[in-house]
């Protein structure tokens, strides 16, 4: 009987060779679709208004959000470095970058916590407020979950035992965090900047 011996094959693989990376990609497709639909809802509701935007966000809240975006982008860059370290399977830089990304995530969360009570309209003010808060809420949940995951990973990297598959897992985790960061940029532009540059 002929055989195909797979004994010598490696037990981990990086990037798109890893099945979990495809799982994460699908998760990103699902969540990305959700964000895209929220953007559609925003544009749809906008067409119902004669003047846009019906309320202003307020300077303190806007500034806080800018800080949040800055922290998110910085954490995205750090996460990219973390992914590179994971590809090289170097423990020390993985520890450092994951911890740093977690801390920057916490800064972003703190900025959001500061921002929310200072927004000058509520979700039940009108449809504009509903879509604004709905989108912000959904994304904040993602930031919360992503930062939590980064934190758990950082803890795992410090406590051990670190298995051979963990760098790949870290890559996938980083991949997802990059989505959380990047998906916010167009939504931020739509929710916060569009009203400044394209009022009606």
């Amino acid at each position, binding site marked *: 009987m*002929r055989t195909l011996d797979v004994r010598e094959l490696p037990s981990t693989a990086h990037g798109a060779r890893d099945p979990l990376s495809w799982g994460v990609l699908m998760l990103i497709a699902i969540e990305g679709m959700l964000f895209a639909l*929220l953007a559609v809802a925003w544009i749809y509701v906008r067409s119902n208004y004669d003047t846009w935007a019906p309320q202003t966000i307020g300077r303190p809240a806007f500034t806080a959000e800018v800080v949040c975006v800055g922290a998110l982008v910085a954490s995205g860059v750090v996460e990219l470095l973390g992914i590179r370290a994971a590809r090289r399977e170097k423990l020390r830089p993985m520890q450092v970058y994951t911890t740093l990304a977690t801390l920057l995530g916490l800064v972003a969360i703190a900025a959001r916590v500061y921002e929310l009570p200072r927004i000058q309209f509520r979700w039940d003010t009108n449809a504009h407020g509903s879509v604004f808060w709905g989108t912000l809420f959904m994304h904040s949940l993602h930031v919360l979950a992503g930062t939590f995951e980064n934190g758990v990973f950082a803890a795992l990297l410090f406590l051990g035992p670190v298995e051979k598959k963990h760098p790949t897992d870290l890559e996938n985790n980083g991949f997802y965090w990059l989505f959380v960061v990047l998906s916010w940029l167009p939504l931020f532009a739509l929710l916060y900047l569009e009203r400044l540059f394209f009022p009606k």
Partner: protein
Amino acid sequence: MSRREKYRALALEAEAEKILVEPDAPRIEVLRNTWERQRGFIGFLKEDHHTELGRRFLVTAFVMFLLAGLAALLLRIQLARPEHRFLSPDLYNQLFTVHGSTMMFLFAVPVMQAFGIYFVPLMVGCRNVAFPRLLAYSYFCYLTACVLLWAGLFTNTGPDAGWFAYTPLSGPGFSAGKRVDVWAQMITFSEISGLGVAVNLIVTILKHRAPGMSLDRLPLFVWSHLITSFMVVFSMPSIVAASSMLASDRLVGTHFFNQAEMGDSLLYQHLFWFFAHPEVYIIFLPALGIVSAVITTSTQRPIVGYLPIVLSMIATAFIGFGVWVHHMFATGLPQIGHSFFTAASMMIVVPTGVQFFCWIATIWAGKPRYTTAFIFILGFFVNFLCGGLSGVMLAAVPINMQVHDTFFVVAHLHYVLIGGMLFPLLAGCYHWLPKLTGRLLSEPLGRLNFALIFVGFNLVFFPMHQLGYRGMPRRVWTYAGDRGWSSLNLLATVGAFILGLGVLVFLINVARSFKRGAATGDDPWRGDSLEWTTSSPPPPHNFDHLPTAAGRYASWDRAPDQPIVTGLRADKRELLVTNLLDAEPDHRIIEPGPAIAPFFAALITAITFIGLIFTPWALVVGVVLAMFALIGWFWPQGRPNELLEEQP
């Protein structure tokens, strides 16, 4: 060579094979122990193997089918004669809503996914799905959806705004109480489950195929599930968005769909149908996969037009995303919208037609065996064609406006869904249940089953076309005797009971097969795909040796010495990962194994979203609890596998 020498050589060959195979016997015992099903109640909650979970999905979906079918019988009794007072209007509303919601969300989609969960890993030749814990989690979420909806009905909190729960009727202004909230959260659970299963199937198909099974050798059934799962991924977020917005309008006073505060009811319809039209294809495409599989096996020849069929399914999936507005022709769209969506809706005929002709050509060129499964496929041809034709009629705006929201639409959708999905599904049951149970279903009972369902189905739904023409609105509780609808309604009710009898015969047939069904052996139909190369039912590890594929019909194309995969560990749940296009062996991974965490995660999901029916604070509790559950899910347990060289 003399005959004696020939026999001697054969005997030597057999002996040599024995030597090769025999040392494996203890290894297969280890393999069996490694993959053994979990025992006891806790084991039940921890189980994460696709065959066991596929069976659970299948059984649960059939229970839902029976319950929703019983609801339909009650509705038919109510409509059997004019001015009937069998059900109260309120209960009638709840029953038709729960009937529709159950059939669409808790039966049709999950039952097709159940077939995928059970058979896709077997057909691609691997030992489990890519993410078994996610699959377990998905099952418990699905179960929660079922229990929630039906517990709602039995406690007089059954949703009553129709299966698409249009606003403003379903909004806080017109639907007080918690009925619509039950519906919205049922949607959440069933969509979480659907998405989890879809992701699982996609990654299993893309990364865990048997070596040699390149994408162009994928069985058509597996193709249908791959395409469907992508549709699930891109369409279900839309209904999640719609139902979440509806729930938040009702719970925290948002105005997504409140016209008075610049929200928009039509936004709800767009979001709903952007999911729900693709959903029709999510239900229908796996059925096409079943049709292709049954026809291939029944005619014992390669399918005609493999590539056109695959491309047609992909085309259907794409076009399926561009036709949702034909459900909204009566909402006052601009003319260009009418034209575009009419054209798109009619265009879908093309890929469907291509598949029909490929199947007909296959049957024509082969010598079909008229098994019950095959006869159900013939039933599918006739009934689905009727549904397709009334679909072409509905795609034309003038007719659509005339029969909008009448029984004509009810007739059309049942012809498409029962004709296009239930007939192939029952064909699939007759074809594959022997693989699940090891027992054949009775053929004479099968024929009776087909006859009753075919006649009953056409008696219920064909008259509804006429009722629609005569102006009978759908979802109407009762009607006056002078409208000219009475006799057709009575006929439909009689048909419903014949249809019900057909389903009963099916149940009897299945129950009987457990006791008295003939043993099937591994391959009762001489099937073409890999599930027929293992025992019936499959062992806990699916295959003693992972197979390889030499052609499009992996079971038929096997060489006498077709290679098997060796070198995977037997003492751990190890899977082979192959590459995306050519399925060349790439690396090995060890599955995490059964755990209780997915059950707890599902429990927390249930607490959170059922809590959200009553208070927004449930979300806060849910997020905190979910964090703990996720740590339990992901944190490495037990003896670590291969360690990284560097350690903290």
